[in-house]
């Protein structure tokens, strides 16, 4: 079967043009003169975005090196988070994820500060798929995940914060706190939570269950079936070993 697509014929009219500028490193480390520690933080954030069969192993190794430095790491990471520009959403998220992974009980305070911080108004008003509020909410629900892990580790302050933020004004944050406390809290915490939800007429939040992906309805896939002779197979996922 011949492709109906045109070849890459040069354009007569011009499409859009783009000029890309490379930003400097996003972290300033203004409050940390410990260059080795700073390098460990950068390495851990870098390894978050790894790919390949050894990606997780490399990431864990970077985290392990950082963990050896003790809870004082938190102050540096939290200071960097505060220093980043508001619209560096992914970079801000990566630092919150780092705090979550380090799993220090001392992280309750910075995590609480991140969740409690006011969410700035939506900057992209005429869009259905872009939202600065959504980016801010993901940063905060990730911080909630940090509290949930600490609560599971038996840190009482983390449970207290989950209960507090179960009344957050943003639905996703409330939902994450409710689920986290129901999974990791004591019976007393759960009693307090149920009372809170009853007062707020939000008992429906208890009905939203965390489930395995295999148990939810799956879609029926394609509308078309491509004849086998047209389908070309993807090359193997790691060609680096054979690269010249």
């Amino acid at each position: 079967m011949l492709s109906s697509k045109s070849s890459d014929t040069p354009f007569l009219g011009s499409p859009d043009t783009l000029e890309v500028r490379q930003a400097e490193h996003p972290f300033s480390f203004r409050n940390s003169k410990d260059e080795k520690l700073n390098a460990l933080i950068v390495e851990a954030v870098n390894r978050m975005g790894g790919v390949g069969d050894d990606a997780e192993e490399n990431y864990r190794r970077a985290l392990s090196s950082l963990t050896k430095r003790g809870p004082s790491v938190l102050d540096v990471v939290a200071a960097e988070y505060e220093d980043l520009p508001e619209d560096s959403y992914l970079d801000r998220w990566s630092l919150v994820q780092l705090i979550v992974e380090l799993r220090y009980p001392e992280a309750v305070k910075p995590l609480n500060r991140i969740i409690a911080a006011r969410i700035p108004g939506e900057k992209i008003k005429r869009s259905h798929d872009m939202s600065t509020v959504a980016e801010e909410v993901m940063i905060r629900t990730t911080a909630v995940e940090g509290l949930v892990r600490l609560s599971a580790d038996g840190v009482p302050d983390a449970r207290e914060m989950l209960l507090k933020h179960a009344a957050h004004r943003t639905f996703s944050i409330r939902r994450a706190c409710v689920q986290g406390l129901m999974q990791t809290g004591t019976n007393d915490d759960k009693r307090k939570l149920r009372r809170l939800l009853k007062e707020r007429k939000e008992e429906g939040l208890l009905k939203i269950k965390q489930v395995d992906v295999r148990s939810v309805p799956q879609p029926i896939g394609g509308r078309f079936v491509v004849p086998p002779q047209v389908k070309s197979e993807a090359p193997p996922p790691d060609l680096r070993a054979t690269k010249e």
Partner: protein
Amino acid sequence: MASCTYTVPDKAASGDNFYGAVICNQAYVDYFWNTYGFSGNKAYWDDGWGWDDCCNTSKPLARAFNGCYALTYSASDYLNDSYSAPILNWGRRYVRENIDDLRSFCGDGTAIARSKSGGLVEVYLGFFYSKDVPGRAETLIHESRHQGGKPHDANFPSGSVFGSGKSGADSSWDYEGAWMYGALYLWWYYAVGARTTSALRERARQRGNLVIDNAFATHPGFSI
């Protein structure tokens, strides 16, 4: 014609540094170019968009290829793209079969991507620079679902981060629309995504939950 500039954010947490090191291979470039709608659209990926510099992950084309890599290889058994397998497996097939032309534009800052008639999908600056790598795969699946015949059919629910009462939501999970496809892809990526890290999988989980909580007129009643 529009001209735009963009300052590239840090490429670490997005996954671009590492995915970028992998996709710089002619076999991948050829496969992605010929499979996911780039072919025939060179003009839209030239003039700063990376056609002549397709390993440079500061530029859009390499960042799009990174998304294509995640789309293609995130299932451990990626060669099985049967529709009876999870969407993590057949997402790449669905994109392949529904996007005929993938073109880049500056955009007006109000959309990540748009689905046009006849298999054409336009991707804008936000696709390359505000989405992480698995998020770009999610977007391609989302837009493919529109090409597959499912427009959004409802308004966002009260309190939605996407804007209460605005159009652009799906009515329910069972509608099997673009939001469901994207969320489900992220969910599987979180659950069993291969060749990635637990951090990027957690990012997929947070984004998937955000979609589930905010993009359906009726909440599905479950979360990741």
